């Protein structure tokens, strides 16, 4: 069991998302940074869809009521165990009674806490992800609050091996970190400044030539009215050559749509299933985790990428993540 002593700014339970019911208008949700979510799970021996805790900017204070193994990946929000800094991107064994809290955010926006066995919450339509607006999924359909108690799920065989391997021989030791961590090529996307790669969207050609140029060459700032549903972007306003009604159709994680006032909106995990605004672009899937780690107030630029190149990058990235998974497994077998 884990007690929530302080909730933090916005702490929710998420997994890979609620897919299969978007045709009924059910919002997908899921972890904003799927890479960190997934790697955190792999580090503690969970399968990739086990629920993790998504922690936003100002983290919670948690007390662990049992010996367990955790991993924290994603944005660096200065995690500390019993007051001492604790490493990210590696499994950490902790004793019953230890306290995890977060300090000043250093880089990135969202941290993912995985625990061996996962957070046990009821699944709704096949997913544990919290969708706050409809009050479904996660812990009672809402962000965590002070006083909540989370249950830990059953550990996989891999998690059990890992626990055994990391258990300190000296019973006085409160925590033990694995002597290895994830290679920096998996973690250096956090805080990276190079442009976000975007494919031209289905209605790209309907935009004025100037707008097409501006979209790929001028900076945009993430507005403070941004959330898990989407980032509102301010910068060069984008105009259609002529007013045209677009029929509502499916949108996806990373769709950039432009309402009539001309400020683009980048759709994220809690996006609507369908949209009726013209789509000027679609962020390449490999760059979505970087988007999820950007904060309101930060600025970004877009760079055009071809559909073929985006597909190749995604396949390559997935291969790398699969290799990482195998690499992690060899560490605790």
């Amino acid at each position, binding site marked *: 069991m884990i007690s929530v002593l302080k909730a933090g700014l916005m702490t929710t339970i998420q997994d890979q998302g609620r*897919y299969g019911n978007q045709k*009924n208008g*059910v919002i997908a949700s899921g972890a904003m940074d799927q890479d960190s979510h997934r790697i955190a799970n792999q580090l503690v021996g969970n399968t990739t869809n086990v629920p993790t805790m998504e922690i936003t900017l100002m983290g919670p204070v948690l007390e662990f009521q049992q010996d367990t193994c955790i991993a924290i990946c994603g944005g660096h929000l200065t995690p500390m165990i019993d007051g001492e800094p604790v490493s990210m991107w590696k499994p950490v064994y902790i004793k019953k009674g230890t306290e995890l809290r977060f300090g000043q955010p250093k880089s990135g926006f969202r941290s993912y806490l995985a625990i061996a066995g996962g957070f046990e919450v009821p699944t709704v339509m096949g997913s544990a992800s919290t969708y706050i607006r409809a009050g479904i999924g996660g812990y009672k359909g809402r962000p965590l609050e002070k006083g909540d108690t989370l249950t830990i799920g059953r550990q996989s065989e891999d998690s059990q091996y890992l626990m055994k391997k990391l258990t300190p021989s000296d019973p006085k030791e409160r925590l033990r970190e694995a002597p290895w961590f994830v290679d920096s090529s998996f973690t250096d996307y956090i805080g990276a400044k190079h442009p976000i790669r975007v494919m031209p969207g289905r209605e790209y050609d309907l935009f004025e030539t100037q707008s097409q140029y501006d979209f790929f060459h001028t900076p945009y700032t993430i507005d403070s009215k941004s959330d898990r549903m989407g980032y509102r972007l301010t910068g060069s306003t984008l105009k259609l050559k002529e007013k045209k009604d677009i*029929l509502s159709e499916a949108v996806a994680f990373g769709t950039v749509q432009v309402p009539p006032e001309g400020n683009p909106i980048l759709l994220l995990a809690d996006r609507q*299933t*369908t949209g009726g605004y013209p789509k000027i672009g679609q*962020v390449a899937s490999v760059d979505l985790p970087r988007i999820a780690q950007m904060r309101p107030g930060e600025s970004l630029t877009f760079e055009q990428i071809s559909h073929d190149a985006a597909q190749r990058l995604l396949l390559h990235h*997935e291969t790398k993540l699969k290799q990482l998974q195998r690499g992690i497994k060899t560490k605790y077998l």
Partner: protein
Amino acid sequence: MEQTMHPLGDQALIIDFGDRIDEETNYEVRKVASHLDREKPDWMVEYIPAFTTVTIFYDPFYIANHISKANQLPYDWVQEEMRHMLSELKDHGQTSRSIDIPVCYGGELGPDLPYVAKRNNMTEEEVIATHMEGEYLVYMIGFAPGFPYIGGMDKKIATPRRDDPRLTIPAGSVGIAGEQTGVYPIETPGGWQLIGRTPVKLFDPKKETPSLLQAGDRIRFTRINAEDYKEMKEDEE
């Protein structure tokens, strides 16, 4: 019917049957949807049907590693597969479900009914009768969980959205926005002109099929009084 295909990013493909909102086009969309429901291809994550399109989300890694030819990109494979599917697609004579939606019109539950009547030079009773006479088709579900895009409202009662959108519209509200009518499944902000409310739950996450309505359903609005509304509402809770 002619169709085109387009990518939606690097993990989805859109089949587009044109730009007309009509029953014939939407029927093509439903034919594809029910085919995918029957086949449940293992490379597909899910699909989202809309007025004139079906968007198919796929697993590019699965396709690249288990199905497609060496060096063939996942999108190209899905496009070929969908062309083949469309050329062999049979019409199973999609039947529509008919669903009655009971509505308590006017009064506190339909505060904009007087405005809709005045604007269209009708009496409130005439507006209600016109709204009930319509033959409605659910073209798609989108925007919010269980929210139906409904076609078929008589233009005689068309009314523009409110200038000042309400911050909360209660679940079950039946409204008019331009030439559309709709029902709100969950409480949300919005600018629709509210003419009544239904006690029926349009979205219930506890049910196996959480959305009461599906694309392709025929719906009819029936009239109930305030007492019926209260009683049915209590039964639903």
